[in-house]
């Protein structure tokens, strides 16, 4: 009898069941890679200390610092003090916790430091078939290689530190099938914004998404990471893409990926991971990629999204819409194009990989940002920064009038002091346009690096195809 057909998610899940779930108890799920950072780990280490517990598998744990770290070179490398004392304390506490527990830390001045979801894949630690968790909801990014990766809270960070396991109920599966070719000027960011626009911000709750179809197969790894990254913005805890030759080409030779004979064995195993032809998903959504346009959010959650060429929708009877319009200072029916902009942010775990910076530079080369615009370009990792500098991208940004910073989460959530002022409009390549996300009273419009760069040049919301 042929084996029962299974999805990619089911295969990874089953391989990590220390104990399967029962009616009374959740599954005990083994975790292959635990990424920790300075903001959501200190209270977990405190619990371990209080209970006299050690970190069970320091070798499967990797720490870095990204959320509250400064992006000014003088503060990262020059010894200038970190302005926010509580942030400096978090950094020191992570250093102490890692030293005591024997956990490897890619610290503030490490050449391999960066946003936790950028460095995992970059180092080759993020691998197909692994279970990966981190106290951060954008852990879904790592699913781009065919891992099961999801964000957890601090109590669960403590569970994984102490036992390398989590108690989990098995989620349902949602296939997002995308067919067709993305048009020039339309990026993976536009695709995922369009998907979230269709699903809504709670459409994926309780599900793991598998992104499938010819469009997804044609995406490179950076693009797949952008798509998986925002799965949580549709409410899904995880997003996955089946591993293929694009995945293996990306991982081959990376410092923490298997090498030599171990690599050959790993690839052979990974080739068995993709969803079997007759496997069933609990739900499906289909999308035609050729119809996707450059997208931008107009409201206060990522599901409030329109084509850059579109108008702000008119649903004034809905209190949520009315509140969002009022917060954003927009009117229903207004075109979003040509709305004035104050700040442009290129960065975050969604769009701060090398290809994102290349994409923004493609538009900025030989141009200057509009008068009065502040533009921050924050590479996703120190490696991305060095690679970008080797290609001269830093010169492109600086000559265009943008700032070029050290890596970190920066203005995505403004924890480190990189914030947008009250009432100002920021076109941001990050993942959340919640009220106050980039600073109290700040108004965020999420878009692709191309749209963000085009809007910086014009000082107004601009369809990047007008400048390509």
């Amino acid at each position, binding site marked *: 009898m042929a084996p029962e057909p299974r999805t990619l998610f089911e295969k990874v899940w089953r391989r990590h069941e*220390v104990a399967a779930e029962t*009616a*009374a*108890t*959740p599954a*005990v799920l*083994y975790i292959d890679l635990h990424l920790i950072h300075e*903001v*959501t780990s*200190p*209270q977990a280490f*405190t619990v371990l200390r209080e*209970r006299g*517990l050690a970190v069970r598998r320091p070798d499967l744990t990797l720490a870095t610092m990204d*959320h*509250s770290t400064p992006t000014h070179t003088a503060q990262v490398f020059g010894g200038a003090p970190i302005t926010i004392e*509580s942030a400096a*304390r*978090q950094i020191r*506490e992570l250093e102490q916790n890692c030293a005591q527990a024997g956990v490897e830390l890619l610290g503030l001045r490490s050449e391999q430091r960066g946003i936790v979801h950028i460095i995992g894949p970059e180092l080759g630690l993020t691998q197909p078939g692994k279970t990966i968790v981190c*106290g*951060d*909801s954008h852990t879904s990014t790592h699913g781009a290689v065919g891992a099961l990766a999801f*964000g*957890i*809270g*601090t*109590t*669960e960070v*403590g*569970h994984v530190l*102490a*036992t*390398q*396991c989590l*108690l989990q*109920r098995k*989620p349902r599966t949602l296939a997002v099938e995308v067919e067709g070719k993305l048009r020039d000027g339309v990026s993976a960011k536009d695709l995922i914004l369009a998907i979230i626009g269709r699903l809504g*911000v*709670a459409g994926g*709750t*309780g599900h793991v998404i598998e992104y499938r179809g010819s469009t997804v197969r044609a995406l490179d790894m950076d693009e797949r990471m952008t798509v998986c990254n925002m799965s*949580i*913005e549709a*409410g899904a*805890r995880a997003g996955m893409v089946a591993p293929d030759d694009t995945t293996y080409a990306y991982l081959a030779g990376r410092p923490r990926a298997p090498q030599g004979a171990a690599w050959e064995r790993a690839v052979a195993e990974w080739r068995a991971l993709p969803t079997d032809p007759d496997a069933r998903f609990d739900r499906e959504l289909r999308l035609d990629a050729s119809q996707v346009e450059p997208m931008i959010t107009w409201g206060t*959650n990522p599901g409030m999204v329109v084509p850059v060429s579109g108008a702000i929708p008119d649903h004034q009877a809905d*209190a*949520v819409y009315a*509140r969002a319009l009022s917060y954003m200072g927009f009117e229903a029916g207004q075109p979003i194009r040509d709305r004035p902009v104050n700040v442009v942010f290129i960065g975050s775990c969604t769009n701060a990989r090398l290809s994102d910076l290349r994409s923004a530079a493609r538009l900025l080369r030989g141009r200057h940002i509009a008068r009065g615009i502040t533009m921050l370009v924050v590479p996703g990792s120190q490696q991305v920064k060095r690679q970008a500098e080797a290609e001269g991208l830093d010169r492109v940004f600086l000559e265009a009038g943008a700032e070029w910073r050290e890596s970190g989460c920066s203005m995505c*959530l*403004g*924890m480190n002091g990189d914030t947008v002022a009250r009432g100002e409009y920021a076109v941001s390549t990050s993942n*959340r346009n*919640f*009220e*106050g*996300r980039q600073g*109290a*009273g700040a108004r965020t419009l999420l878009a692709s690096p191309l749209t963000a760069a085009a809007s910086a040049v014009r000082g107004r919301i601009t369809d990047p195809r007008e400048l390509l």
Partner: protein
Amino acid sequence: MTAPFTALTSRTVVLPAGNIDTDQIIPARFLTTTTRAGLGAHLFADWRYDEAGRPRPDFVLNRPESAGCRILVAGRNFGCGSSREHAPWALLDQGFRAVVSTEIADIFRNNSLKNGLVPVIVDEMTSDWLLAHPGAELTLDLAAATLTLPTGVAVRFPIEPFAQHCLLNGIDELGYLLSRGREIEAYERAR
């Protein structure tokens, strides 16, 4: 670790907005802390205080009738966004023990259950009634998984049975996981 969850009867505080994300529950700038204490002061900070840090008198949590309320009723999809456990910590520190909505985001729900904040998911009709009756006195019976309205109607709500068992008996999930240590070792050996 946690005290057993006992019966809860309380008036409600109502926040009718839908999609209240964890950035609203506690903005990121308050996360540069290394403890879980005192976060209630920052709960809904940008809605609760003006630019100068003064309480906005029209925000529900600043009104006298909200004092002592332990049940928060909110619009659909409460707790979406960031995984920050500071969100349930802040709600608990403020005195809340239950959150009621038609839909509660996955990570927030998990985090809440691990801290003794009960996520109560109700149908649209019940939610509409609760949103229209701020301050209603409700009784939450966790063992029966019911929420009883002042009308006498008891609404059943879904709750993950293991989390329910842990909350009712004050069982700590980490202790349970540690008790499965042999199986974890066996799994590691078999890989």
